[in-house]
C-alpha cells in the first residue's frame, strides 16, 4: 500500500505540492489525475525518494523508499521513459538494474518478451521510439515483480494497440492484488483505465472517488424546450437557476432538477415540448473541478477576437 502523508514540496519559489494526503490501495487501478503542472510527477518523484519533501512523507508498506532493502522488488516505476542512457542496449540497461537488486538475469529475458521488445533487446536505447521506450520502462518496472507499481503518463507515445495493451495490463496487475497508481492529465483515459481516481490541481487535493462517484457529485444540466422560453427563463431565475439560451425555444438550466423545472413551468402555465436531464460527462467534471487550478490555461477565444 502506498500512503501520502501531508506531503508538501517547495521548489525555490513555487509550491509544487501542497499538503497532499491520501492512500492508494491494492487490488484496484488508481488514477492520479490533474492538469499539466499540477504536481503529479513531483509526487511520484518524492515517492521514489528522488526529491526530498519539504514537509510530510510518502511511504510504501509503511516504509520510506530509501529504507527499502531491495526497492525494485517492492516498487516498480516508470517515470520518464527516456530516462535511460541512450548509448546502452535495452538488455544491458535491464541487466544493470537486475544486478543492483539481486534479481536473476533470466528475469531480464522474461520482461523483455513480456513487454514485446525482445527482438530489439540488443539495440541501443537512443534509437527507440517513445512507444518502444515506454515498453522498456514497463519491462524495467516489472523486473522485480513488485507489489506496488507507479506509472507517470504511461499512455504518452503509445499507438492505439499499445494503449489497449497497457489498459488490460494495468487491470491484470490490479487483479493480482498489486497496488497500481497511474497518473494522467486525460480524464477520458482515466475513465476507461482506472477504478479509483484522485484529482489534484495546483498541487492540492481536489477530490477522490470511483468514476461513478465523481460524475454523480457533479451537477448536470437540464435542457428544456417550451412554448415561451423567455417567460420560463424569468420564472426559473427567481428559483436561483442559472439559465442559458441554447436556441429560439431551448434553455440549458443548471441548479435545478428536471422535476423542479417541470413543476415550475406547469405552475406558470407554460407548455413544455421537451425536458431532458443532461448528465455531466467525465470531461466536464474534470474541467469543472480543475477550472481554478489550470496553470497554463488558454484564454477564452472570444476575448482574442475582440481585440
Amino acid at each position, binding site marked *: 500500500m502506498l500512503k501520502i502523508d501531508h506531503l508538501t514540496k517547495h521548489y525555490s519559489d513555487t509550491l509544487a505540492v501542497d499538503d497532499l494526503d491520501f492512500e492508494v490501495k491494492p487490488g484496484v487501478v488508481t488514477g492520479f489525475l490533474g492538469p499539466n503542472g499540477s504536481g503529479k510527477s513531483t509526487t511520484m518523484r518524492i515517492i521514489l*525518494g528522488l526529491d526530498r519533501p519539504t514537509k510530510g512523507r510518502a511511504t510504501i508498506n509503511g516504509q520510506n523508499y530509501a529504507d527499502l532493502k531491495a526497492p525494485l522488488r517492492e516498487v516498480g516505476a516508470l517515470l520518464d521513459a527516456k*530516462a535511460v542512457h541512450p548509448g546502452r542496449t535495452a538488455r544491458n540497461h535491464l541487466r544493470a538494474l537486475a544486478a543492483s537488486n*539481486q534479481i536473476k538475469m533470466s528475469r531480464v529475458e522474461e520482461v523483455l518478451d513480456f513487454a514485446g521488445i525482445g527482438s530489439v533487446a540488443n539495440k541501443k536505447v537512443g534509437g527507440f521510439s517513445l512507444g518502444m521506450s515506454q515498453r522498456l520502462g514497463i519491462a524495467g518496472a516489472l523486473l522485480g515483480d513488485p507489489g506496488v507499481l507507479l506509472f507517470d503518463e504511461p499512455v504518452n507515445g503509445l499507438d492505439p494497440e499499445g494503449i489497449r495493451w497497457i489498459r488490460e495490463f494495468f487491470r491484470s496487475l490490479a487483479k493480482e492484488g498489486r497496488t497500481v497508481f497511474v497518473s494522467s492529465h486525460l480524464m477520458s483515459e482515466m475513465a476507461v483505465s482506472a477504478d479509483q481516481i484522485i484529482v489534484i490541481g495546483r498541487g492540492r487535493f481536489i477530490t477522490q472517488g470511483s468514476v461513478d462517484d465523481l460524475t454523480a457529485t457533479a451537477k448536470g444540466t437540464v435542457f428544456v424546450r417550451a412554448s415561451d422560453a423567455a417567460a420560463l427563463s424569468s420564472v426559473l431565475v427567481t428559483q436561483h437557476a442559472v439559465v442559458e439560451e441554447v436556441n429560439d425555444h431551448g434553455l440549458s438550466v443548471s441548479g435545478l432538477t428536471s422535476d423542479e423545472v417541470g413543476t415550475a413551468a406547469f405552475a406558470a402555465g407554460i407548455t413544455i415540448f421537451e425536458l431532458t436531464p443532461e448528465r455531466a460527462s467525465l470531461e466536464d467534471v474534470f474541467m469543472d473541478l480543475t477550472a481554478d487550478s489550470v496553470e497554463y490555461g488558454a484564454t477564452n477565444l472570444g476575448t482574442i477576437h475582440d481585440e
Partner: protein
Amino acid sequence: MTSRNQTLTSTTKSEWIKFRSVRSSVMGFIVFIVLTIGLGILITAVIRNHWSHSLPADRLTFDPVTTSLAGTIFAQFAVGVIGVLFISSEYSSGAIRTTLAAVPNRFRLISAKLIVLVVSMFVVSEIVCFSAFLIGQAIYRGVVPTASLSSGVVLRTVILAGVYLTLLSVLGFGIGLILRQSAASISTFASLLLVLPLIIFFLPESWQNSITKFEPSAIGREMMSTSPPSQLFGAWTGTMLLIIYVAVVMCVGMALMQRRDA
C-alpha cells in the same frame, strides 16, 4: 540461500555492467591506451634518432623514465573525461532517476561507481604505463641510456604514473558529480590542468616558485620524475597532496549529492 538485500557488491556489479556497456568509456580507454603508448613510441624514437646531436647539458638532465611516459601528459585528459562522463552522462540522459530508484542509498551508489572507476582505471593505467616504459627502454637500448625496473626509484615512478592517471579520473568524476553537466565538467577539468599553470605564469616569479608545485599538472611532473626539480615537491608529497585534492572534491560532490533533488 543468500540474502536478497542490496549490498555494495550488488551495486558495484550493476555499475560495472553500466560502465562497460557504453561506448564513451570503451572509446575513452582506447584513446587513453593509444595516446600513452603511441606517443611514448613516437617521442622515444625521436630522442633516439637525435641523441648523437644532443647537447651535453641536455644529456645531463635526461630522464629515460619520464620521457618514455610522456604520452601520459595527453592521456590525462582522456582519463579525466572518462571519469566525468561516468557520472555526468547519468544526469544529461536523465538516467540518474532510474539509477536512484534502483539504488536509493546515494552514498552506496557513489561508492560503487568509485570502486568500478578506480579499479578499472588503476589496472589499465598500470598496464599502459609499464608497457610505455618497457617499449621506450627497448627503443633507447644501445643508443640512449636506459633505466631498469630493478631500481626502486624507477619502479616507483612508473607505478606512480598509473596512480596519477587514476587519481585524475577520480578528480574528473568528482567535478562531474558537483557540476552534473558534461561540457561544464570537462572544461573545468581541462582548465585545472591547462589554464591554472598559465595564470600562475603571469604572477611575480617569487610567487610562481612557491605556488607552482601545488598545481595538479606540476604534481604530475613530481610523481612521474625520478628526480623532481628542487622547487617542486618530492614524489610522495605530491601524491599525498593530489589525494587530498581529490578527496576534498569528492567530499563536496558527495555532500551535494545527499542534499540535492535528483
